[in-house]
């Protein structure tokens, strides 16, 4: 079981940016979100990670005030997203998964419009330049490439200088350059004190950007913590070493803590699976010394977020 560390406030005593408790949302007979709890600390980047249909978008859209919870409570910046919508909307920035822009609008025109709805917006021209959209100011939205449309949508989410932005799959379908440009922007938002909640399918994105990761599956948060905590929390790290082939692993297993495993997948190449901590490393090297084995090439494989993710959410394909 993974340590579930709900996003603790960075400044003690400060109220979280988002608090979701026991959220249930059904569409007809289908339960999209099933008792979800999520806390987002202020001033960091939280990645909501999950397979398709896990309930990520429904959760985010409930926080944005688009959906009324069937059960549970949602508080965003201390407000009820539905009842206090008028007070909340100026304070949040929203990037929808797709669409949201007039087919006939020009890129610059749409951004200027969203800016005009706010009291102290960023300079739209500087923002388009910043996102590499400087040349498409007069291009109709429908003629922009997919990546340009995504970046315009991102620009619309931040132009009003919100405290909190929700980005629903901000880099889906982007090429590596555009993805990195988006990551840069998210890092800059964080550095400037904006709270960012993003959903993603990309483990690398969560590892690169997130202070806090919530893994969602089946409409619930199955684990939450920093990427390091989640990877460390996974008991399944691996220690590898090479040595003389045919060593007696049974005696090694006796020395190792319960739940560990040892094997020799290739003659002379050994692996130990378990909670790889300094104690385990010491046990293995002591055992090697006992048996007069010089362990060459000792490596500790840290499990990636993707390993943890697959371990938690299963490997079967989702619809």
């Amino acid at each position, binding site marked *: 079981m993974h340590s579930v560390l709900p996003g603790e406030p960075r400044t003690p005593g400060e109220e979280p940016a988002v608090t979701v408790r026991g959220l249930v949302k059904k569409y007809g007979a289908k339960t999209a979100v099933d008792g979800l709890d999520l806390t987002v600390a202020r001033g960091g980047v939280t990645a909501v990670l999950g397979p398709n249909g896990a309930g990520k978008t429904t959760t985010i859209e409930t926080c944005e005030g688009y959906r009324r919870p069937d059960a549970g409570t949602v508080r965003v910046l201390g407000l009820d997203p539905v009842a206090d919508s008028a007070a909340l909307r100026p304070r949040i920035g929203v990037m929808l998964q797709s*669409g949201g822009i007039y087919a006939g609008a020009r890129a610059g025109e749409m951004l200027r419009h969203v800016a005009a709805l706010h009291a102290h917006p960023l300079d739209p021209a500087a923002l388009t330049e910043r996102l590499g959209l400087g040349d498409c100011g007069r291009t109709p939205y429908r003629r922009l490439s997919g990546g340009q449309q995504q970046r315009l949508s991102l620009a619309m989410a931040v132009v009003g200088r919100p405290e909190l932005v929700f980005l629903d799959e901000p880099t889906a379908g982007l090429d590596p350059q555009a993805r990195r440009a988006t990551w840069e922007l998210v890092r800059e938002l964080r550095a*400037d*004190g904006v709270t960012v909640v993003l959903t993603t399918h990309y483990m690398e994105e969560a590892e690169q950007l997130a202070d806090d990761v919530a893994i969602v599956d089946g409409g619930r948060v199955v684990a939450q913590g920093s990427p390091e905590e989640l990877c460390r929390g996974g008991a399944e790290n691996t220690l590898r070493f090479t040595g003389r082939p045919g060593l007696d692993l049974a005696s090694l297993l006796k020395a190792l803590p319960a739940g560990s495993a040892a094997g020799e997948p290739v003659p002379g190449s050994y692996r130990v699976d378990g909670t790889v901590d300094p104690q385990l490393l010491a046990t293995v090297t002591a055992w090697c010394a006992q048996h007069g084995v010089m362990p060459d090439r000792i490596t500790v494989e840290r499990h990636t977020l993707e390993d943890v993710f697959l371990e938690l959410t299963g490997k079967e394909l989702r619809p």
Partner: protein
Amino acid sequence: MTATGTFTPRPGAAPLGRMIRAQAALETRMLLRNGEQLLLTVVIPTLLLALFSTVDIVDTGDGAAVDFLAPGVLALAVMSTAFTGQAIATGFERRYGVLKRLGSTPLPRWALMTAKTCSVLVTEVLQIVLLTVIAFALGWSPHGNPLAVLLLLVLGTAAFSGLGLLMAGTLRAEATLAAANLVFLLLLVGGGVIVPLSKFPDAAQTVLGLLPISALSGGLRSVLQDGAGVPWADLGVLAVWSVLGLGAAARFFRWE
């Protein structure tokens, strides 16, 4: 990453008046930029007015043809913008998530609808100026009380807006596109715009006379052509359609 201060939060909604003005200006630009919409709102009414005033195809009764046609075409202009154009544009805004996206900006929904109405009214003013100039060039001599005309145009706009928004908010965008154009065509023929209702059989006349387009074209004609007083019956029909249409739209409109 060090802070640059570019994105330091400073949230806040723009003043309501500025939001509504910006939204109305954007909606109007979208409409005037759209070729299909211009065909519907400008080209068709202008062509019908010019063609039927100069070529004697339809028997428009006694007097100059333009005196009969101008009020009908003004009614058509209102319908084309408030109903057909607004239904199609709003239907696709819903389909493309524009209404949804605007729903999370500081712009309240009622302000969005107000801006849409402003945009419809601005477009109508442009249409009416254009059609009036053309009608005068064709020898139009209008009569009657301008206030009665204004009242008819406003209630007609309300009635058609309600019906257009009801359609846009409940049907798929493609269905709205097809249905709004079909309704436009049917009402153009059967609503006293260019063909007098008296050309239809008696039974049909009674039913057709209750259509919003017939009330608007009939009311405008009674004032502008015949110099009659305030056409209360026609205003009553438009008021009923307004209440029904706007009420149903408010009740059934889906934003996504």
